[in-house]
C-alpha cells in the first residue's frame, strides 16, 4: 500500500460531516483490497472498545451503590439484558463487516463468443484455487423459471467432469495477466513499505528525520517531523465521548487546534490510532501540507506481512 492510500484510509476514521465523507468517497477509488481489510479491522476495534467501555459500570457509581448498601451483583442483574444487547450489536457489526470484506470483486465479463468446444478456461472450484478446464459442449440452458446458461467441462489435468455456469468460467490468459499485474503492484508497494519500516526503526528518539524514499503516490516527498503521542492522546480522548456530545465537540476542537498548530491547516490528514502505538508526524516537502501519523510497528508491519502473503498466494494461483 502506498502512503497516499494509507493517508486516505486513515482519514476515513475521522470523517464527521457529510462533506468530509463525500470527499473521502471521491478519493476512495485509490483503496485496495488490503485497505478494506484494515479499515474493517480498525472499525471493529473501535466498536469492540466502545462496547467494552459501556458494559462497565463506572467506579464512582459502584462505590455509590456500595455506600448505600447495594451490591455489584444487583447492578449486574439489572444490566444483564442491556449488556446482552450491547454484545449483540457488536457481534452483528462484526458479521456484517466480515461479510462485506469477503464479497468478491466484480469480475470482468467473459466473452460468450470465446466459449466453444475445446476452449480452455479456469474455474474456482475451491476458494482461492483455480483449476484449468476444457469445454466439452455448446452453451446450454437449465429448465428453471430463471434459466441459467452452462457448459460441460473437464479438468485438463484431472478426471473431474461437471456442468458449470458460464459466468464462472475465467479466461485463463486474461486471469494470468491480471494476477501478474497485481503481483507487480503489490511488490512495488511492499518495497516501499520495507524502506519506510527501516526508516522508522532508525528514527529512534530523534525529533526530526528526513526520509527521502518516503514518497506519496502522487510523487510528493514526505519527511518525518517528530515522534509524538500527543496526536494519539487527543484522538483517544475525543473517542471516549459519544458522537454529538459537547465533550466530544470540545475534544474535536482541541484536535483541530493541534492540527493547525502543526500544519497551519485544519483540513489535514489524521487517522485513528490503535491505543498502544507510537506515532510520528509526517508532512509533504514542497507539496500540499499533509499531516499523518505512522505507527512505528503495527500498521506497517502488518501490511508487510499481508503483502508478502498476498504475493505468495497470487504466485500459487498463476502456477
Amino acid at each position, binding site marked *: 500500500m502506498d502512503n497516499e492510500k494509507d493517508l486516505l484510509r486513515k482519514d*476515513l476514521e475521522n*470523517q464527521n460531516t457529510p462533506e468530509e*465523507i463525500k470527499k*473521502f*468517497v471521491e478519493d*476512495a*477509488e485509490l*483503496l*485496495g*483490497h488490503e*485497505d*478494506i481489510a484494515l*479499515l*474493517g479491522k480498525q*472499525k471493529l476495534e*473501535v*466498536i469492540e472498545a*466502545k*462496547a467494552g467501555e*459501556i*458494559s462497565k*459500570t463506572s467506579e464512582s*457509581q459502584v462505590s*455509590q*451503590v456500595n455506600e*448505600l*448498601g*447495594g451490591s455489584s451483583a*444487583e*447492578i449486574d442483574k*439489572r*444490566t444483564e439484558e*442491556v*449488556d446482552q*444487547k*450491547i454484545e449483540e*450489536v*457488536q457481534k*452483528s*457489526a462484526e458479521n*456484517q*463487516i466480515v461479510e*462485506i*470484506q469477503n*464479497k*468478491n*470483486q*466484480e469480475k470482468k465479463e467473459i466473452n460468450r463468443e470465446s466459449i466453444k468446444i475445446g476452449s480452455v478456461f479456469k474455474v474456482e472450484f475451491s476458494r482461492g484455487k483455480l483449476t484449468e478446464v476444457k469445454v466439452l459442449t455448446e452453451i446450454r440452458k437449465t429448465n428453471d423459471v430463471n434459466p441459467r446458461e452452462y457448459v460441460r467441462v473437464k479438468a485438463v489435468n484431472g478426471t473431474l467432469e461437471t456442468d458449470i455456469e458460464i459466468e464462472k468460467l475465467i479466461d485463463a490468459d486474461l486471469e494470468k495477466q491480471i494476477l501478474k499485474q497485481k503481483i507487480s503492484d503489490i511488490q512495488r508497494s511492499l518495497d516501499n513499505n520495507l524502506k519506510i519500516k527501516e526508516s522508522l526503526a532508525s528514527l529512534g528518539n530523534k525529533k526530526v528525520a528526513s526520509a527521502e524514499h518516503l514518497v506519496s503516490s502522487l510523487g510528493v516527498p514526505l519527511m518525518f517531523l517528530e515522534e509524538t503521542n500527543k496526536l494519539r492522546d487527543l484522538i483517544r480522548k475525543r473517542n471516549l465521548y*459519544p*458522537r*454529538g456530545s459537547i465533550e466530544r465537540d470540545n475534544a474535536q476542537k482541541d484536535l483541530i487546534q493541534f492540527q493547525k498548530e502543526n500544519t497551519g491547516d485544519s483540513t489535514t490528514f489524521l487517522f485513528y490510532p490503535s491505543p498502544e502505538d507510537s506515532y510520528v508526524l509526517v508532512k509533504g516537502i514542497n507539496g500540499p501540507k499533509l499531516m499523518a501519523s505512522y505507527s512505528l510497528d503495527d500498521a506497517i508491519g502488518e501490511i508487510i506481512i499481508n503483502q508478502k502473503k498476498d504475493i505468495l498466494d497470487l504466485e500459487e494461483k498463476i502456477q
Partner: protein
Amino acid sequence: MTNEEKAKKIEEIYNEAIKKLAELEKERKTIVSSYIKELEAQKIDAIRASILSDK
C-alpha cells in the same frame, strides 16, 4: 461490489453500530442511576423510620 462501495458500506455499518451503542450506553446508565435512586429512597425511608421510632 467495488472497494469504494465496500468502504462506504463498512462506514454505514460502523456508524449504525456506534449509534446503537450510544443509545444502549444511555439505557445502561439510566438503569444504574435508577438503582441508586432506589437505594437512596430506601435509605431516607430508613432514617425517617428511625427518627419516628425515637420520638
